[in-house]
């Protein structure tokens, strides 16, 4: 398809469809689909795609959308879906089931604030709610990152060393409904990059067994431990997938995280999704004025790349986290992960900023103000609430 101008939803729909179609010589593909703003265009795109060996089942709820994916994956097909906000909340039971069944479904989460009160704008609280489900989670900062990550997601999810589902998240409206220039894949490229989907534990008449039946604590512990072990393999599998991606497409998508100007930085600011791109312009500006500041874009949230993050933080003495999500009674969810990661670096001043909740427009001025606050700090405080209204 080549270089084109497309919305995030269009990029996601197109890439999911090509990935599904790429399995036409194996057991085919299947999606359960249900609309919710702002992801609806994705399932509309999928519904209009002419699969050679695939079906999009138009179900009555998100819960059943994931149910269909579970059934189709148990039957050995490549599966995918998309949802947002309260749709993800409604789907939750089957999201956990898909992870525990170890089915390599890929789901696009178009981040939207959970209601009530009803708010359609971006907030990462919806997909972060699935923190403890056995799913990998990627957060994308651009249309190209989204396209590339979806393909990587299938490759990593379906790798037998991982065999776990993956959420690929993007910002509602900011990414889903705006257009950017993006290199879209062709079917031939995707056919080359994605091997056939093989689910070793699919339902088989040769080995009749009850899948997902009762276990006691011993087997359950082994099951959870095996999932943890696979999560720990996922980073290596991701690196291999990036290598292969580079061989096929000639560019290398971001991996677990991206670091800019961190080498000699005293202060590092961490953010994800499109907020990280705004942050990048601010960091570039301040660097030009000689400030020793850098940034990290967290892309992979599960498994959380602790080692990579510690290495990227390096010798910095201050770390600020921008969280567009809120865990009531605690703080930002990325902050919690980063605090756990920095347990062996008690010298680092770690400060959380809750900013852009409910889709507040986080401008460069907002981020400058946060960095000014950070620069005059000698101690950390409880998470700071930063207003984005002007």
């Amino acid at each position, binding site marked *: 398809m080549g270089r084109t101008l497309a919305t995030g939803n269009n990029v996601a729909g197109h890439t999911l469809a090509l990935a599904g179609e790429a399995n036409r010589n194996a*057991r085919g593909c299947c999606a*359960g689909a249900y609309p919710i703003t702002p992801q609806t265009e994705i399932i509309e795109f999928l519904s209009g795609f002419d699969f050679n060996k*695939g079906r999009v*089942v138009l179900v009555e709820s998100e819960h059943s959308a994931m*149910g269909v994916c579970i*059934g189709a994956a148990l039957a050995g*097909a490549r599966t995918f879906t998309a949802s947002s906000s309260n749709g993800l909340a409604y789907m939750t039971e089957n999201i956990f089931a898909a992870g525990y069944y170890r089915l390599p479904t890929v789901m696009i989460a178009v981040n939207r604030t959970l209601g009530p009160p009803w708010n359609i704008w971006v907030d990462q609280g919806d997909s972060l709610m699935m923190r403890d489900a056995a799913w990998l989670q990627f957060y994308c900062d651009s249309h190209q990152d989204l396209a590339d990550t979806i393909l990587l997601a299938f490759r990593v999810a379906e790798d037998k060393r991982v065999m776990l589902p993956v959420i690929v998240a993007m910002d509602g409206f900011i990414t889903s409904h705006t257009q950017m220039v993006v290199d879209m894949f062709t079917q031939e490229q995707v056919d080359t990059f994605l091997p056939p989907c093989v689910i070793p534990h699919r*339902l088989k008449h040769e080995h009749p067994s*009850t*899948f997902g039946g009762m276990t006691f604590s011993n087997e359950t512990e082994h099951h959870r431990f095996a999932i943890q072990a696979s999560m720990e393999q996922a980073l290596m599998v991701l690196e291999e997938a990036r290598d292969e991606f580079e061989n096929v497409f000639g560019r290398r998508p971001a991996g677990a995280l991206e670091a800019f100007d961190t080498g000699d930085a005293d202060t590092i600011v961490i953010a994800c999704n499109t907020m990280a791109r705004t942050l990048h312009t601010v960091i570039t500006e301040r660097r030009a004025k000689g400030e020793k500041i850098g940034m990290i874009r967290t892309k992979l949230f599960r498994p959380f790349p602790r080692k990579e993050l510690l290495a990227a933080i390096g010798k910095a003495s201050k770390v600020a986290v921008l969280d567009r999500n809120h865990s009531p009674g605690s703080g930002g969810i990325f902050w919690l992960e980063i605090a756990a990661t920095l347990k062996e670096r008690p010298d680092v001043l770690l400060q959380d900023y809750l900013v852009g909740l409910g889709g507040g427009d986080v401008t460069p001025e907002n981020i400058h103000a946060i960095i000014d606050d950070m620069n005059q700090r000698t101690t950390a405080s409880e998470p700071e609430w930063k207003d984005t209204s002007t």
Partner: protein
Amino acid sequence: MSTTTPGKPYESHLLRPGNTNCAGCGMSIGLQWLDEALGDEKPVLAIPSCCGIVTAGAFPTSGYGVPTAATTFASSPAVATGISAVSAMNDIDNPVICWAGDGGTYDIGLATLSAAAERNEDIIYICYDNEIYGNTGGQRSGATPVGAVTSTTPAGKGERKKDIMAIMAAHRIPYAATLSIGHREDFLRKVRYARSVKGFRFLLMLSPCPTGWKSEPDQSTELIEIAVRSGLFPLYEIFDGCRYRINQRPDSTSIEPYLKQQRRFSQVWNNTDALQAFIDAQWQYLDGMATVFPAKDR
């Protein structure tokens, strides 16, 4: 109770010996007759969280001799849809069967069931209806009959049982029928007919639960025979949701022995008016439908 299916070697039974069903559970007969009706055909089962999945026993053993997906409570028709879709695109013709209790059918799974029926998915859905949440110790469900004592209706349920057959008929699915574990030929014929039809098929089986019904395990078959003959559980078929055939009309059998053999009905032993009113209304409706919209003679 026998745990063999005529004409099948032990290892290929749909319901294997060693399953964890209680003595007198209606599922034991239902699953064996299902197996017998399907003959050499091997189904795939989708079973939600219910006694039917406890039947399988604990990992790594399985009480089912066919591949079985243990789904979340409300999801068996959605999971079966996914399995059936992938079967179809791979030219696999094994029937996909949902085996679900009344909780998963009448209550929590109703929206999922309705949607799969509306899409006319190629699924056989069998509800083994024991009229309670049996797996959790016998709580009221939408299938519990009026007057029955459950652990959450200690004074007897005040409301009537939901008419799930009418709900399914309203979806205009190709086939819906009731199954009795007291009427073997009728049972086998209906399952075989269901298998011969494409699309969504719904079968409702009244399934004794001696634990919850407070009945004797060796009375299960007899109880269902009385339920049919007294008119409480009519045997009938609905074709395309709009053509009715009654298989057996009530005779002069009284409902009384059915009630007296189950202590869950102790609150209504001396006053069967509400239950009799339910039976009368049920037959008025069924007779009306079968008269106005009769199924063609076979």
